[in-house]
């Protein structure tokens, strides 16, 4: 027992020392000089010829002998960067910005028009998986073939065969022809070969989406251990989550040039904010189209009604000349028609109402720059919100909050004076689970009198478990009717680098087992 305690104590003592070592190590690395440069890209330019319709056959080339009918499309406009040994660098940017071209240049599949690329050491790329698989050959034979494509000798492949098969989890099927594999099995085998190649530099293009969740996690863990072994990694991915976890540095490429680079969090947030702006513009555009479509429908319906009315008048005039005995039946049909007309007018009114609602929903966008596209707004607007901001503990407006951080929500309102109002805040998980709500009325047992203009601030410590949530803000009257009700105004994320709890909230807790307090092994949780 005493011995146990002793080792436990020593362990405790060791731990901070170890982390101190780590920090010192990092510092030393900086002091002695950075690790050697493995990849050096200097002022690389790349353009592709874009033919309108490529004249690949003799006839066409004969008719237009000069091949001048093409435009040069510049993809990379001079990019330069260095990657040091053991570093993991992520390339981010929107589609078509040149990330994948950069990666292809690094693998030497493409050659730059200008500039130079130098890489020291063996390069392996996880760009195209399963290239060169032959469907009729067995998994085992294909491992050898595929490995040889990565420049691995048969001897080396023999040595790794067991690892590869174990990693792919295909032990039972390894001697069946590959054509009998499911696509998941196929990709697993391909990934297993590619990732078991010992390389000094590993280039990865958006491939961590292989297999089921368990296999993905395994790949990810493998990647981490490869990185720890000192392999230099360049990765292209749209999953910011993965980038944050693997990369030491992000390079943001925009329109063929490096826009910014730096620590993942910093660059990532900036990039996401820029992307969000673009997305909102797009949604606004789509909403406008939808509204125009509705308006067009309304107009068409009105015209149709008018035309029908005219026709009916004409018909009636003609009918008046007809015999008296038909009049009763005519009366009935007329009533029927009127009924139809009424119904149609109701439909029209309903459409009009929906259009107005949509317009009201759209006003939510003016409240915040992070407005969620699905935001809905209702109410009498006697008093209404003018702006809603979610601030983190540093007072910055963001949509990502660490667990334990204080969220501050600032809501400006304006409207009629002296209205009895109740301010309400609600957090709902993205899958619809209502997680938390608070109202002034319940907190202080009475309604509040509104001013002409004012500001409500709500502060709360974020203990929501890692995930995505939406914010609802409301103003309600004494009888609970809506004054300004906004659902799903902002989508925000509760972030947690080290998830140790499950459920809805991260509750403060302690464990005691057999009278001993269990140490919580959580690094740097900001609780």
């Amino acid at each position, binding site marked *: 027992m005493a011995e146990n305690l002793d080792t436990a104590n020593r362990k405790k003592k060791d731990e901070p020392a170890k982390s101190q070592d780590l920090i010192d190590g990092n510092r030393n690395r900086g002091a002695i000089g950075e690790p050697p440069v493995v990849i050096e890209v200097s002022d690389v330019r790349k353009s592709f010829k874009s033919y309108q319709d490529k004249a*690949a056959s003799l006839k066409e080339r004969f008719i237009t002998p000069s091949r001048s009918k093409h435009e040069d499309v510049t993809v990379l406009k001079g990019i330069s960067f260095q990657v040091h040994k053991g570093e993991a660098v992520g390339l981010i940017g929107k589609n078509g910005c040149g990330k994948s071209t950069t990666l292809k240049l690094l693998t030497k599949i493409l050659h730059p028009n200008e500039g130079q690329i130098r890489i020291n050491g063996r390069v392996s790329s996880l760009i195209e998986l399963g290239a060169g698989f032959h469907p009729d050959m067995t998994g085992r034979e294909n491992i050898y073939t595929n490995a*040889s494509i990565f420049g691995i000798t048969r001897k080396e492949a023999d040595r790794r065969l067991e690892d590869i098969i174990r990693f792919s989890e295909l032990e039972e099927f390894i001697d069946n022809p590959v054509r009998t594999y499911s696509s998941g099995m196929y990709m697993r085998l391909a990934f297993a070969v590619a990732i078991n190649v010992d390389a000094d530099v590993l280039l990865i293009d958006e491939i961590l989406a292989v297999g089921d969740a368990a296999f993905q996690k395994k790949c990810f863990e493998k990647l981490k251990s490869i990185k720890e072994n000192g392999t230099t990694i360049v990765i292209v991915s749209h999953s910011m989550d993965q980038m944050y976890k693997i990369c030491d540095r992000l390079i943001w490429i925009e329109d063929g040039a490096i826009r910014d680079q730096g620590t993942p969090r910093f660059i990532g947030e900036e990039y996401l904010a820029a992307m969000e702006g673009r997305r909102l513009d797009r949604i606004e555009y789509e909403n406008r189209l939808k509204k125009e479509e509705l308006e067009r429908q309304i107009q068409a319906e009105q015209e149709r009604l008018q035309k029908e009315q005219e026709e009916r008048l004409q018909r009636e005039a003609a009918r008046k000349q007809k015999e008296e005995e038909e009049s009763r039946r005519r009366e009935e049909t007329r009533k029927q028609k009127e009924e139809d007309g009424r119904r149609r007018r109701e439909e029209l009114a309903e459409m009009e109402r929906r259009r107005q609602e949509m317009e009201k929903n759209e006003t939510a966008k003016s409240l915040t720059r992070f407005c969620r596209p699905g935001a809905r707004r209702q109410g009498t607007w006697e008093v209404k919100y003018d702006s809603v901001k979610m601030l983190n503990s540093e007072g910055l407006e963001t949509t990502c909050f660490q667990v334990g951080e204080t969220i501050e929500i600032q809501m400006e309102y304006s409207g009629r004076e002296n209205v009895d109002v109740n301010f309400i805040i609600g957090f709902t998980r993205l899958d619809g689970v209502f997680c938390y709500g608070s109202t002034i009325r319940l907190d202080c047992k009475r309604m509040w009198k509104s001013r002409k203009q004012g500001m409500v601030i709500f502060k709360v410590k974020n203990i929501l478990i890692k995930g995505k949530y939406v914010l609802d803000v409301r103003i309600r009257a004494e009888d609970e009717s809506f004054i300004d009700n906004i659902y799903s105004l902002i989508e925000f994320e509760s972030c947690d680098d080290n998830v140790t709890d499950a459920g809805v909230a991260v509750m403060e807790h302690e464990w005691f087992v057999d009278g001993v307090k269990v140490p919580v092994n959580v690094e740097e949780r900001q609780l």
Partner: protein
Amino acid sequence: MIQRLKDIYAYRDMIGSLVRRELRGRYKGSVLGFLWTYINPLCQVVVYSVVFSVIFRVNIEKFYLYLIIGMMPWTFFNTSVQGGSTCIRAQADMVKKIYFPREVIPVSYVTSAFVNMLFSFIIVFLAVLASGFGFYWRGMLFLPVIMLFEYLLALGVAFAVSAVTVYFRDLEQIISVVMMAWIYITPIMYAIDYVPEQYRILIVMNPMTPIVEVYHQILYYRMMPTPNYLILAGGTSCVVFVAGALLFAVLERNFAEEM
């Protein structure tokens, strides 16, 4: 240049496994499997020998033997050139997506055709035995030499046509027309002295002529190959090989973009 050769050497196992894949994959699933390697040229030989010895009455002793000795090397050359013209484009998926020295593809294609020819020489030897001609052993020493020359020639042409076809697809069709005619200006179905004096230069200009002739000299005429044919065959083969390899090296840079 040295770097390139080193690079290709590092990928020797890829060449090996591509050759294996080519040889094993081609007939996989067919009932007769690898036997097709023999059946195909054999049928060709049977058809030609019937047509030429029965209908045209070519005046060559044991015509089937003469034909088969010329036909097997020709089949190798023909496969290398025709298949070679499409081999890069057939592997477009790999070329566009992963790095390896591009030379690997034509080299492994031609090598697999070469291995096929080696197998088909079993038939040639059987035919020699069946004819009762027997072997001229001193001359047989030159068989590997002429095979190497033919390999270099085929590889050189395959380098050139595979690279050019990437940029200019009509070549594929042009090649099949050219090959159809080429067999008739090579002394395979006739002896070279049948050709009228004024056209003979045309036949000798053809780089396949000295090669096929050396095969004939060794196996059919049972004599030492004449030095002028050997030198001609060796010289043209090396020149074509180097020229093809250089052309390939120049055109190879933009493969991924052109496909």
